[in-house]
Structures are given as structure tokens and as C-alpha cells.
């Protein structure tokens, strides 16, 4: 890809005249779309969409117990290759992605997913390598993992990294397991984990899955966690505190050093949810801030595609003292050759294995490509631009929407719908109306500490012109909320589907196709 943003200092002056269709990309209009039944509902029968070598007949199964065999599976599609291509082409047209337009989904860092990374991850040497191929046939993959581990340790300011967790939440689980094992090794696993009320839901869920009870800490009126609060909650039963920094309000936890000191003083450890690392790349390092453990979300900070809900990758970086407890495998370099340590005997204190094989290698390739293209300056520019864009959005929308916390924002900013209260228009309505303007809505109703939150994260990928178009739309909606609130509540009008009835979906779950399936 071109440099993460194509941005140059010179560009400040660059906001030029907009095209006839408004600045940046145009908004949404009504266009043609195509209805498409489920792949199981197509009328076609008897066709097949693949070309395989001639298959043997049923007699080939003569060596298997007849009772354990099955024939063709009723209900599977019978479509030609073309019909199937059309099916998925049409479905895709009902979707909105970063490639379609601005996607300011707060906390998810929806940055550009470089097409070059997609090409690289598909190189046969990467895509077709078997996880159990002998190490001598996999030196390139192992070298890449070894390099990526080191880069992630350096970026975190910590000493060792495991790539194995499948996503951020598993990274949290992994980090907490390491913490538990470390405490265990010191005689007592402890019982509690301190988690501020701004935390993402996966934090308490991961703690619980680890057998810890969660203690929720209130954040202060400035949206920050205060040392006193931690001081009061901290005791010898607390295994760790889980912090997200900047937190989910986009606010930097200024007291982090003091908080870490308090926790460490009582023998606790400091866990960092690194989902917001995009704000800190090359600017500050969790290790330097006092964190002992942190998980990354490669699919956020390092531009691996979100894929409509994954796959992700959640590497975990830790201090030297915790390294022995990291899960398997570990990549080691011996002379000029690389090898995977998979045997507990070589790592007696490991928490064990967290998933099959080694991790989401396909994401490692993309993340490494991103790091290599950015280099040190590019990584720092990433954080700087992400923060510049977020603050620009904040400045442009402040006054139009209520800003629950005046505190400085870093890479994202959270507004709410207080200013719209009188009109009856809610955050949900604003979000749906944005769709009609051609934008993906921000994250809504999270973090929970903000009632009716609108959490906006523009990322470094977006140009000023795109953000201006978004701001224009947000202002238009605010104005419309006053002038014609019912119009806003009727949104969205343009997509192939209007607002969908989620209550109905939950009340009478229809979770799979069945012949003659009805939804009512």
C-alpha cells in the first residue's frame, strides 16, 4: 500500500475545492439492488458448481460399516458455478465495508486493509504451508513469526510476546492465565481482578473464564480512573488490574504510573487491553507506562481485515518475569535456523496451549507487512494522524452533539444524544440516519458509562475531505432532528432493508434454513 495515509505535513493547507457532488466521496442515493434467496432456496436442481476428478461410486466405501454411512445430504444446494457466483456477488452488494466508505466504528479501528497484504498472504509459500511441515520446510514462516514477536515486544516496551491468541478476547484470557500462573508460582493465585466501568465486556468475561471475580471500579468525572479509587479496592487478594489505555472514552489514563505503583505495591500485576494501541504507536509504550502484560488486536492496530467478524489475532506481550509462563508454541532461533518449541518439557511453567497449532498465521503475514511498510516513522505517523483526525471530528461536532467528557481525546471521541433529547431523536436514530447519508454509524451505546454513547474513531486512513463529509452529515442530522424528527426516526430509507425487528428475532429464534421456512 502507499504510506498508511498518503499524508504529508504539507497537506494541512490542502483542503481544496470539493467536487460537484460534495466533498470527498458522494453520499448515498437510491440505486438498483437485487433480491436474492438463500442458497438453499434456489429452484435449481441437479447442478454442481465444482469440477472434481471423477469420483468412485458408493462401492468405494465397502470397507466402512454400512450403518455409519450416509447418502447425499438433503437440503444442500444444487447450483451451477455461475448461479453461485451471482448469489455471493449479490449478497456482497448488501454489505458496507471500509472499501465502500467511511467506517468510524469506535474501538474497532476500521483502518484501510492494504490490498498488498492480501496478495502477500496468498503467496503459495504462506497460504499452502502445513502447520506440521518439518521445520526445514518452514523456515520462512518461522522467521516471520520470530521477527514479528520481536517487533511487537519493542512496540509494547515489553520483553517477550506470544502470537498464539486467536483474537483480543483470547489475548485477555491468555494474559490473565499468565498472571494467574505467575501468582500461583508465588504461592497464591489470588481471587480478584479490578476492572473500571469503562472496560469492554470481554474484560470481565475473560476474567470470569479464568476463575477470577471482577471488581468494577468507577471512573472519575473526567472519565479517568483515579489512584484513590484503585487504592481503596487494592488488596492482597487482587491478582491484577485490567486497564485500557487510552480507555474506551478515548481518554488517556494520566495516572497510570501511580496506579501501577499502587497495584505493584500490593503484589498485583497490571494488565493492559491493547485494543486502543493505535493511539500510542511510537508515541508511548505500555511497558514504559507500568503495564506488565498487554494484548494486541492485530485486526485493529495492524490493519488485518475484520472479515465481517474475524478472523482476528491477539498476541500478548509481557515482562521478562512472566515470559516463562507464556503459552506454547514459542519460536526460537538457533544459529541461523528457527524452530518451534511445542513440548512442555522445554517450557515447564507454560500455561499450556490456547488453540490448535500456532496462531492465525495468515494475520501475522499481514501485520508484518504493515509494520514493514510503515517502519518506525510510519508507525508514529499512524498514531499522530489517528489522533489528529479524532480531534478534528471532535472540534467539528462539539456544540452540535453533547460531549459528556471535556477531557482531551486521543484516537477516538465519544458524544451522546443529550442535545437531541428534546426532539425525541436518540443515538439509535442518528446512527440509522447516517446510513442514508452514506456512512457507517459509529459504535453506539458503548461505553456503558455514557448514556446513549456515539463513539467515533476515524483512524489515520481517512482524508480530511471524507471527515468533512461525515461532519456535514452529522450536522444535517442534528438539524433534521429539530426540523423533522419523525424523518430521522424513519431511517434508514435507502438500504435493501429498513430497521429490522430484533425483538422478534430473539423471541421466536429462526437460526437456520429449513424447507418451507417461515419468518413471522
Amino acid at each position, binding site marked *: 500500500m502507499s504510506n498508511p495515509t498518503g499524508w504529508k505535513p504539507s497537506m494541512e493547507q490542502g483542503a481544496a475545492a470539493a467536487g460537484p457532488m460534495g466533498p470527498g466521496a458522494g453520499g448515498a442515493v437510491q440505486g438498483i439492488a437485487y433480491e436474492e434467496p438463500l442458497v438453499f432456496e434456489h429452484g435449481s436442481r441437479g447442478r454442481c458448481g465444482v469440477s472434481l476428478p471423477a469420483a468412485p461410486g458408493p462401492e468405494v466405501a465397502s470397507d466402512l460399516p454400512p450403518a455409519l454411512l450416509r447418502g447425499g445430504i438433503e437440503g444442500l444446494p444444487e447450483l451451477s458455478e455461475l448461479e453461485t457466483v451471482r448469489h*455471493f456477488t449479490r449478497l456482497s452488494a448488501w454489505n458496507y465495508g471500509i472499501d465502500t466508505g467511511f467506517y468510524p466504528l469506535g474501538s474497532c479501528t476500521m483502518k484501510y486493509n492494504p490490498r498488498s497484504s492480501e496478495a502477500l498472504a496468498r503467496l503459495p509459500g504462506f497460504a499452502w504451508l*502445513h502447520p506440521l511441515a518439518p521445520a526445514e520446510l518452514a523456515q520462512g514462516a518461522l522467521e516471520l513469526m520470530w521477527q514479528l514477536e520481536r517487533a511487537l515486544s519493542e512496540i509494547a516496551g515489553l520483553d517477550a510476546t506470544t502470537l498464539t491468541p486467536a483474537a483480543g478476547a*483470547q489475548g485477555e484470557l491468555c494474559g490473565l492465565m499468565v498472571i494467574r500462573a505467575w501468582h500461583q508460582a508465588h504461592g497464591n493465585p489470588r481471587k480478584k481482578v479490578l476492572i473500571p466501568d469503562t472496560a469492554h465486556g470481554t474484560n470481565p468475561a475473560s476474567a470470569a473464564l479464568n476463575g477470577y471475580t471482577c471488581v468494577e471500579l468507577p471512573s472519575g468525572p473526567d472519565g479517568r480512573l483515579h489512584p484513590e479509587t484503585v487504592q481503596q479496592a487494592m488488596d492482597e487478594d487482587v491478582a491484577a488490574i485490567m486497564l485500557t489505555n487510552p480507555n474506551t472514552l478515548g481518554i488517556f489514563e494520566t495516572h497510570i504510573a501511580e496506579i501501577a505503583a499502587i497495584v505493584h505495591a500490593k503484589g498485583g500485576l497490571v494488565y493492559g487491553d491493547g485494543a486502543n494501541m493505535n493511539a500510542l504507536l511510537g508515541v508511548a509504550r505500555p511497558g514504559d507506562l507500568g503495564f506488565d502484560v498487554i494484548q494486541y488486536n492485530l485486526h485493529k492496530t495492524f490493519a488485518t481485515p475484520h*472479515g465481517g467478524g474475524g478472523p*482476528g489475532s491477539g498476541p500478548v506481550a509481557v515482562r521478562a518475569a512472566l515470559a516463562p509462563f507464556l503459552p506454547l508454541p514459542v519460536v526460537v532461533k538457533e544459529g541461523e535456523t528457527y524452530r518451534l518449541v511445542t513440548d512442555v518439557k522445554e517450557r515447564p511453567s507454560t500455561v499450556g496451549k490456547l488453540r490448535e*497449532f500456532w496462531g492465525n498465521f495468515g494475520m501475522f503475514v499481514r501485520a508484518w507487512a504493515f509494520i514493514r511498510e510503515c517502519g518506525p516513522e510510519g508507525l508514529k505517523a499512524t498514531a499522530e494522524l489517528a489522533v489528529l483526525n479524532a480531534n478534528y471530528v471532535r472540534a467539528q461536532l462539539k456544540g452540535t452533539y453533547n460531549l459528556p467528557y471535556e477531557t482531551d481525546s486521543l484516537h477516538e471521541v465519544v458524544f451522546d444524544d443529550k442535545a437531541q433529547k428534546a426532539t425525541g431523536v436518540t443515538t439509535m436514530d442518528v446512527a440509522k440516519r447516517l446510513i442514508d447519508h452514506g456512512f457507517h454509524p459509529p459504535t453506539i451505546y458503548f461505553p456503558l458509562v455514557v448514556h446513549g454513547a456515539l463513539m467515533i474513531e476515524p483512524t489515520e486512513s481517512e482524508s480530511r475531505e471524507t471527515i468533512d463529509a461525515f461532519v456535514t452529515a452529522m450536522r444535517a442530522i442534528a438539524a433534521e432532528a429539530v426540523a423533522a424528527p419523525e424523518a430521522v426516526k424513519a431511517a434508514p430509507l435507502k438500504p435493501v432493508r429498513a430497521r429490522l425487528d*430484533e425483538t422478534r428475532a430473539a423471541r421466536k429464534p429462526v437460526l437456520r434454513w429449513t424447507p418451507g421456512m417461515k419468518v413471522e
Partner: protein
Amino acid sequence: MLDAIGAKSVPELFRSIPEPLRLARPLDVPPALDEIALFAEMQRLASRNQVAHPPFVGAGCYPHHVPPVVDQLLLRGEFFTAYTPYQPEISQGTLTALFEWQTFVCLLTGLDVSNASMYDGATATAEAALMATRVTGRRKVVVSAAVHPEYRKVLDTYLRSTHDEVVTVPFGADGRTDLAALAGAVEGAAAVIIGWPNFLGVVDALPEASALARKAGALTIAVTAEAVAFGLLEAPGALGADVAVGTMQSFGNPPSFGGPAPGFFAIREPYLRQLPGRVCGATLDKHGRRGFVLTLSTREQHIRREKATSNICTNAGLCALAATMHLAFLGKQGLSDLARLNHGRLRLLRDALAARGVKPAFSGPVFNEQAFEVGDAEAVVSRLAKKGIAAGAPLARWYPDHPKARGALLCVATELHSPELIDLFAKAVQP
């Protein structure tokens, strides 16, 4: 932009980070590369991985032909650059495909409900065990030693933190789970976990095991890593399984050194409220048109937080989409053809090795994977590595003390292994 913000400089925007906590030097990572140099460097790395021949090792990750059409459709930005469909009106593409994925999983496993994917087969297995403890209120799970060792390791890791007990029962000379041992262990168990087919490639005693489990009030969890088997073998749901988990990697997902791949998780309807992960459901929009949404989210962490059925959030959506596409192209005919083809190739491999005096290590029936008595398996592996061939998995790595496992090499044969290649392989294994 700075003017609008009212800041003098970009660094000023970071003033909330105390000066001493900031990094005063550039990060110590390699210098930036332009796209041409990047491709050269990545090509260098990729070329140090040898993939000229399809591997003869499966063992949880299977080499299959991925029709190029699948990969080309996956590159449509509307699919791969979207995220979790929080806004259903502009995510019907992802949601419809997830609904189709859930349906494929149900059709293949013969169960009622599927979720929208898991990280992989191993975590799906661990989550299934946890679900069983919630459903039964029991703390012990019984797992067959013939279940994928990697899956069992993850099971241990997960259950250790929740203080649940894992009891392993051995397999016999036929490579099937020792039913007597199972009968002895099943009392008071939350679940019995058994492979279908199992790690040894053997079509295990699922019907018998599920009968024992049902008697003891335990759930039966069938684990499948090679989902192509569903095209030839009876559905686990039809053989008594209450839960079917595993990976659909075989459909649409290249090995990619072991990840990512789509874990699947299917259950009988009664356990719905205990299902982990995301679920997509059908509903209507306000004009009465059918559409799809994520549903039953009260089970999930973003609502339930520490009481959630799981902490999983981002899962394996795009991998599930790849599998959904591949299954749609295969369809009814293609899937059973593919399954018969795979079994036929395994038989060719078995015959080719038998012709050279190499016998199967276990007597049980297999699908497309089998362990063979090759003597010094590690030696065979390194000898074939010299030829650039990934030969198979020496079972002794996971079963050091099992008499049958010592000297056994687990090999796979799929539609990618032509008769010629199989011949070449057999000759290389036993010159």
C-alpha cells in the same frame, strides 16, 4: 485541521500523556519498505517455505483444492473489510452468509442449532466442555485419548482455570475409544468427548459412546477436524451426539500454517441459552421483508459481561464465509463426490503402501487418513523432507508410550494427491 482543533502542533494533541512516559526515540523496528521492496522481502520469506507438493500430513489441517472462484469472491471489499454486523441494514450480505453457514453446519452435523463460528476446533471443543458443565452442573469431562491431542491440550488449559476435571480414556488396538474404560469413567461426567473421525483417522465408536453417555446423563460431544468426512459418514447428530464441534478448514480455507480457520459449534435446541458465541437469526424489517440480525445477544459479554456464556467476540467470520462459499459450490453432489474421492485416494495410499509391506497401525475403519507402521517415523519424515515432501505426523510425538503409536506415521490422502503422487510417496516411504 490543527486550526479547527485550536492546537499549534500534532504533538500538542498528546499533552495528556505525561512527558516522561513518552517514547523519546524512534521505535527499533526495521526501516520502511516501498511496495516493490516489500514484495521482494516477503517473496524471500515465502520461498523459504517448501510447498511444491501437497503435504501427506493432515492431523487436524487438511490440504484440499480451493476453487479459485472462492478466493476471488472473498476479495470483494464489501465482505472482507466489513466487521461484525452491528448495523444489520447495511450488513445483510454478511448476515445472510452467516445464516447459510449456520444452516450448512446443521445439515452436515445433523443437529438443530449452530453459532456463527469459533476461533478453531480446539477452542470449540473446550467451550463445548464448558457448556456441558453449565448444562449438567457437573465438573468432570471424559475425553477419548483418540481426540486430537492439540484439542485435548487446549481443553486442559481452559478447564484448569475453571477447576473442572478432565479424565482421559484410552483407545484400543483398533484405534477406537476403549468402551470399557469409558463405561468406567462416565459416571458423574458432564460430557463425553470423542472424535468423528478421531485423530488416528479412525471412524470411532460414536454410537456406543453416546449410548453410554446418555445413560450416565452426560452430553456427547463429537469432534471433527476433517469436515469432508460429513460427505460420507453419518451425521454425529444421527448417532447420538448432543454437540458437534470442530473446524470447517477443509472447505475454502488453505492450511496457512495452521490458521486462521473456522471453528464450528452445533447443538441440540434445548441447550440454546448456553450456546457460546454469536448467532444470526431471521426476522422481518418494518415493511415485513425478511432479513437477518445477530440475536440472543443476552448470552454475550457485551451485555452479560462476566456472566456471559463465553468471552469470544471477534470470531472467524471470513473463514466461515469461505467455507460457506465452498460448500455452496460443492452442493449435494459435489460434497459426496469429494468425500468418496478422498476415501478412494486413502485406499489407493493404503494399497500402495501395503504393496511395499507397510501395514496400517490400527485395525479400525478410516476415512481419508490413516496411521501406518513405518518403523522409525521421524527418520521417514526427515528423509522425505529432503525431497521437499511433508510426509506425515509421527504418532509417537503425542503418544510416546503407546505401543501401537510407536513407529506409526499418520498420513492423509485427498483429491490433491494424484495416483502418481501417491505412488511416488509410497516408494519414498519404503524404497
